[in-house]
Structures are given as structure tokens and as C-alpha cells.
């Protein structure tokens, strides 16, 4: 029969074909792995490792050429595949390290920026605080000046007038004989001097003021009432001239209605001829 030799020949040919061609699966894997490593974006970070993978693949290819399908080919191909994987992982690692360094640098830059901002804000706050302290010092100085002025004014008031507290408030009583010539409502030069001091004191307050004119009991009621009103108005006008706000001041003539002493004696009548400047209590305003 001719079939047996033909079959034997075909098997021999197939065996020969398998023996001379066909890389092992390990070598095919190694080739693929190398291609992946060579073309991967990470390869730029690890050119030396890619070269090592190429050299390992070359050794496997040589073993395949010299002794195809051998243990050596398979082993060297296995190593070549791992070398290609190492090249990719090493590239990943180098990329990570660079990203880490960049992030650290970014962190430091931002930290420095925040520190500078904080220092700037602190300096600005310090400047504002210094400004506020200076302002406070000025205000305190002004306040002390005002207090000194007010105290001096009150002291001078005590020298020129009788100052007392009653239900209406603080009452400054000025002697009528000092302020006016008998029967007249024009202020004497001495009166203007005294009232200028009173005005200084009143300008230190913000209370409403009532100026009351009073006479003794001599003369008619109508005359006394008119005279007391004229005198209260004269005092009011002068105080307004001295800077006391007019809307704070009310002038009232009371005639002989509210004596503070007996009208039977010259001294008593002299006491009743007076002008009272009343600083109303704040609660009464």
C-alpha cells in the first residue's frame, strides 16, 4: 500500500514545519509586552528599562532561532516579558515621583503665599490698631481738655453765681443788680463778661435750658412781668451769641411770682431781683 509511506511523509513534514517555525507562546507574549512598553507614554520616563527589555527579547529571539521551542527560549522569553512589564511600571513610578515633587512644590508655593497674605493682614491690622490708638489718644486728650474747660467754667460759675440743684435740675442764679441797671433790660458790661463764662459752661452740656427772669414786688405786676421777660430774653440772646444753640433755650418772665426771699427788706428784694438759668434734668426733657 502506498498510503502508509505518504502518511509517514506528511507527519514528518508537519513535524519539520513545527520544529522550524512557530515561536513559543512565551515568546509571543514577550514580543507583545515589549511593544506595549516601547509605545507606552510612560516609556519616556524609563528609556534604560525599555532598552533592557529589548536586550532580553533579543536573547529570547536568539534562543528561538538557535533552539526553537526549547526550555531556554521559554525561560528567556518569560524574562523578556517581565523586563517589558518592569519598564512600564518603572515609567509609572518615575511619573509618580515627578508628580509628587510637583505637588510638594505647589504646596510650598501656596503655603508661602498664604503666609505672606497672613503677614500682610497682620501688618494691616497692626497699622489700623496703631491708628485707632492714636485716635483714641486724641479723643482722650480732647475729652480731658473739655473736662478741664467744663470744670474751669463751673468753678468760674461758682465765683459769679449761686449754683444749686433742685427738682428742676441745676439752677444758676445770677444777681439782677449785677446784670442790669435798675428798671432796664440791657446787659451791663460786667454782665456780659460773666455770661460769657456761663456760656462756656453751658456749651459743655447738651441739656435744654430755661432762663427765668424774676423781679421784686415793687411796681405793677404788668411792669414786673414785662421787665422780667425782657431780661430773660436779653440773657438768652447773649448766650446764643456766645454759641449756645438757640433751640435749647427757652426764656420766661415770671415777674414777682416766685420770690426766694422776703420783699419787706432791701436785702430780700435784692435777692428776688434775679435771673435763673435752669439746666433741665435729662429725664424731664
Amino acid at each position, binding site marked *: 500500500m502506498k498510503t502508509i509511506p505518504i502518511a509517514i511523509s506528511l507527519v514528518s513534514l508537519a513535524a519539520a514545519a513545527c520544529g522550524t517555525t512557530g515561536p513559543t507562546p512565551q515568546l509571543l507574549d514577550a514580543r507583545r509586552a515589549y511593544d506595549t512598553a516601547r509605545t507606552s507614554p510612560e516609556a519616556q520616563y524609563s528609556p534604560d528599562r525599555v532598552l533592557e527589555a529589548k536586550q532580553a527579547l533579543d536573547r529570547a529571539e536568539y534562543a528561538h532561532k538557535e533552539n526553537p521551542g526549547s*526550555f*531556554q527560549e521559554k*525561560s*528567556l522569553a*518569560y*524574562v523578556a516579558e*517581565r*523586563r517589558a*512589564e*518592569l519598564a512600564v*511600571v*518603572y515609567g*509609572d*513610578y518615575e511619573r*509618580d*515621583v515627578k*508628580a*509628587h515633587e510637583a*505637588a*510638594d512644590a*505647589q*504646596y510650598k508655593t*501656596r*503655603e508661602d503665599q*498664604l503666609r505672606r497674605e497672613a503677614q500682610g493682614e497682620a501688618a494691616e491690622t497692626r497699622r489700623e490698631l496703631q491708628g485707632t490708638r492714636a485716635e483714641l489718644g486724641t479723643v482722650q486728650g480732647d475729652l480731658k481738655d473739655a473736662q478741664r474747660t467744663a470744670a474751669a467754667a463751673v468753678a468760674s460759675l461758682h465765683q459769679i453765681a449761686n449754683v444749686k440743684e433742685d427738682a428742676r435740675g441745676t439752677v444758676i442764679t445770677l444777681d439782677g443788680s449785677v446784670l442790669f441797671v435798675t428798671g432796664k433790660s440791657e446787659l451791663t458790661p460786667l454782665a456780659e463778661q460773666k455770661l460769657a463764662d456761663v456760656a462756656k459752661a453751658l456749651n459743655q452740656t447738651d441739656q435744654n435750658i430755661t432762663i427765668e427772669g424774676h423781679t421784686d414786688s415793687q411796681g405793677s405786676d404788668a411792669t414786673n412781668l414785662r421787665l422780667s421777660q425782657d431780661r430773660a430774653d436779653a440773657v438768652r440772646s447773649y448766650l446764643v451769641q456766645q454759641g449756645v444753640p438757640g433751640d435749647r433755650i427757652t426764656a420766661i418772665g415770671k415777674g414777682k411770682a416766685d420770690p426766694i426771699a422776703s420783699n419787706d427788706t432791701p436785702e430780700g428784694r435784692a435777692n428776688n431781683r434775679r435771673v435763673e438759668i435752669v439746666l433741665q434734668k435729662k429725664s424731664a426733657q
Partner: protein
Amino acid sequence: MSLLGRALVVSGLLAACSTSHPLPANYAPTEAAISAADAIGAQQDPRAALHLKMARDQLAEAQTLTQKGDSDKAVLACDRARTDAELALMVKRESDARNETNQSKAAVERLGTQ
């Protein structure tokens, strides 16, 4: 044949006849690579752990081949084991570096929002 050639042949014969088979020269670096991968914590990363196991298996294969007197194959197995150990080491290092990078980026983002 030269004196040196004869000496090499004799020593080769002596080695072949010996009952104890010396480990291949690349055995120590392979063990060192496995130890390094182990020390860095390759077991904690799945991919690195897989390559570490393959390295150990192939080192055991190299020892078996050595005992059988097949030193050529033992050397090749040892090379395979060393490459797997190096890969395990590198995979773990890369994983650690990636985590640290992510932490740094997160820190930058946190700082950026202040």
C-alpha cells in the same frame, strides 16, 4: 589541549560526579530580590503579591533542578524568579509612590481652599 583546558575539563568532571550540587551563581541575588520585595510589603499589593509568589515558586523549581543536576535549567529558572521578584518590588514601590502623590495633591487642594 592546553593545561588550562585540561584543568577545566577535570574540574567539570569532578563537579558532575559530585553528589552535592552547588546552587547557581544567580541564586543569592534572586533571594535578595525576594527578601527586598517582601520587606517593602509586596504582600499587601495584589499584583506585587502575585509576582512575589511566582518568584518563590520558580526559585523552588531552580532548587529542584539543581538537585537533579540540571544546572543550566536551574540558572534559567533562577533568572525567571529574580525578574518576578524585581517586578514585585517595583510594583509595590510604584503603588506607594502613587498613594503619596495622591495625598500630596489632596493636601494642595485643601490648602487651595483656605
